[in-house]
């Protein structure tokens, strides 16, 4: 233990030995007992800390009222949180049941629209109307094996 190390420890942790790191305390106290310069240094920093403690902070009358009463803008929720809150309302859930029901139906509707829009490789060059007429005609002429049985 050297004076520089000792000085650094009391500058970092303070003059109170209870605040010194436990693994260094024994060495520091032993060094302190043998070194008069260290004792003088400790005394100086102890006095400095006592002087620091004497610096008072004034009261701030009215500050609490001022902070409590300051205007607070309504908290803005993110779009996601707002959407979730709308879909799953915590109040009047029965009356607003249509909201989650609507949300549950959306994927189904989306799928129907998507499949109707895209043919997925099955193309027909004929006019749609004619296609359906031909289709119906084929169905009408189809020999349905079940009826024969």
């Amino acid at each position: 233990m050297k004076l520089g190390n000792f000085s650094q420890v009391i500058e970092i942790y303070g003059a109170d030995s209870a605040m010194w790191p436990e693994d260094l305390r024994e060495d520091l106290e032993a060094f302190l007992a043998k070194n008069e310069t260290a004792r003088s240094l400790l005394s100086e920093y102890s006095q400095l800390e006592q002087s620091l403690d004497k610096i008072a902070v004034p009261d701030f009358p009215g500050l609490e009222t001022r902070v409590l009463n300051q205007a607070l803008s309504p908290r803005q929720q993110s779009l996601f949180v707002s959407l979730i809150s709308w879909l799953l309302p915590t109040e009047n859930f029965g009356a607003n049941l249509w909201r989650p029901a609507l949300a549950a139906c959306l994927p189904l509707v989306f799928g129907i629209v998507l499949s109707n829009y895209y043919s997925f490789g099955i193309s027909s060059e004929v006019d749609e109307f004619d296609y359906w007429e031909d289709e119906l005609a084929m169905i009408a002429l189809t020999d349905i094996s079940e009826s024969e049985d």
Partner: protein
Amino acid sequence: MTDEELMRAVCNGEQFAYQTIVKQHLKSISHYAFRILGNQKDTEDITQETFLKLWINAEKWQPEKAKLSTWLHRIAHNLCIDYIRKHGSIQTLENIEEGTDSIESPRDWQDSYEVSETRTQQDRLLKNAINNLPENQRSALVLCHYSGFSQKEAASIMDISVKALESVITRAKRSLRKQLGDTGNNNGDETTTSSGQM
């Protein structure tokens, strides 16, 4: 309510939670700001703004990373530093309140006056020395000595490493010791002190 519950309520816009947090932390925040800035008006402004930022940015607090007090002090610290950098070095003009020495009799008046005057001068010297510190040293000193934060918490507030904080606080204390020592030597002929000057 725990801090997490309070902050969750603040996120939901519940003002009672905000008010509870203000009452719990106002003193520590205002004291911290005063020790950094040194005057009442700026302290009140910064304190008010700190809690306004708490309201606006409540969802940004991560309890697993820092305690609420640590987070609040970080907000106050950043506001103080921004203020100092914008307005230049703050010279406090606040007078330190006198001690509570009571004058028992007219015969003691002269002695009491001299002791009181000496103490006031010492306090003034120390306060000037603190005000002459760079803002990061002053902040480290206040956080570690006055506010009672651990080094890890103080480093988190100042957004520096623990090693950097130790270096800063070491420089702060050495600087104070040196300034007070130099000032004490300069005034040694005029001032008799009951305790040794640094």
